[in-house]
């Protein structure tokens, strides 16, 4: 991470932890943007199965839904849970359950290509 990026992150952290009023206002704007994005992605997600039954393949649907779900989960963890402004050690702790996902993918691949 460059020095400039670190400074930007620290400023954002200050804003996120009760810094200046302007920073607090921008954080509220950011939270609302994330909220709206989550809402839109949910609408898109719910719409996918109906489109899938008409035209798409099962794999396309699965990959698209997984991508959307993990994107939404990532947004919640990064912005609502403030991981964006935490030190790398805390991010590594937060990533621990992802190892489980890796194991799941490996086992499912083994089942598919047995």
């Amino acid at each position, binding site marked *: 991470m460059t020095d400039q990026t670190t400074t930007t992150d620290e400023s954002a952290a200050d804003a996120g*932890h*009760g810094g200046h009023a302007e920073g*607090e206002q921008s*954080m*509220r704007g950011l*939270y*609302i943007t994330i*909220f709206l994005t*989550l*809402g839109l992605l*949910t*609408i898109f*997600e*719910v719409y*996918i*199965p109906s489109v899938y039954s008409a035209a798409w393949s099962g794999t396309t*649907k*699965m990959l698209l*839904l*997984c991508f*959307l*779900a*993990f994107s*939404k*989960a990532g947004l*919640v*963890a990064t912005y*609502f*849970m403030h991981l964006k402004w*935490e*030190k790398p*050690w*805390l991010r590594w*702790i*937060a990533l*621990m*359950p992802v190892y*489980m*996902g890796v*194991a*799941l993918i490996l*086992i*499912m691949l083994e*089942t*598919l290509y047995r």
Partner: protein
Amino acid sequence: MDSGHVAAADHAAPQTSVPEDPHFGKATGGKVGMWIFIAQDGMSFGGLLFAYGILRSAATEWPVPSDILGISLTAIATFILICSSLSMVFAVAAAEERNQEGLVRWLMVTIFGGLLFLGVQVWEYTHLVHAGIGFAECTWEGETVNSLFGSTFYSVTGFHGMHVTAGVIYLCCILRGAMKGKYTQGGTSSSPVELVGLFWHFVDLVWILVFTFIYLL
């Protein structure tokens, strides 16, 4: 001031800052602890979803979830939970701004969102059980369905529902303290609100994945 007075003063006044740690920065011990708890709890959910994936992929017959489960209603419940996550970040911001009124208001909104979600889940369970989807035996419109569908559905969503219930209780405890002004004294006094926020967002995050894997796929 003697040591007794110093100790009393330390106890009364909120800690103004957390010393910088080379690994965790200004994160409090409570926050690091909460993240470790969330990581292990995430693995519990991962294990359940893991089992669900294996059982479903190995099953010769599995019903299309959207044929049985009410996707529209659950999508609304998902949106309610996302709304409660937004109100939670506003509650944390209010605590950090020492805005007691805002904190109490946003905590109440978050609790209401959690209760609404639980209400939807109870309604859904009641409807499904009456329709024949049990934990050990499943029938749908007069035909027998793979019983693992019901077992996995109730295990995963039930485990999540227990987390929402625990979250609502946790939020109520924090609300009680917030009404007394405990978390709006500046410094690290708002830390408990941040911790309950982390737990609540985690519950929301897990539901996002559960909704996709159990309902939509």
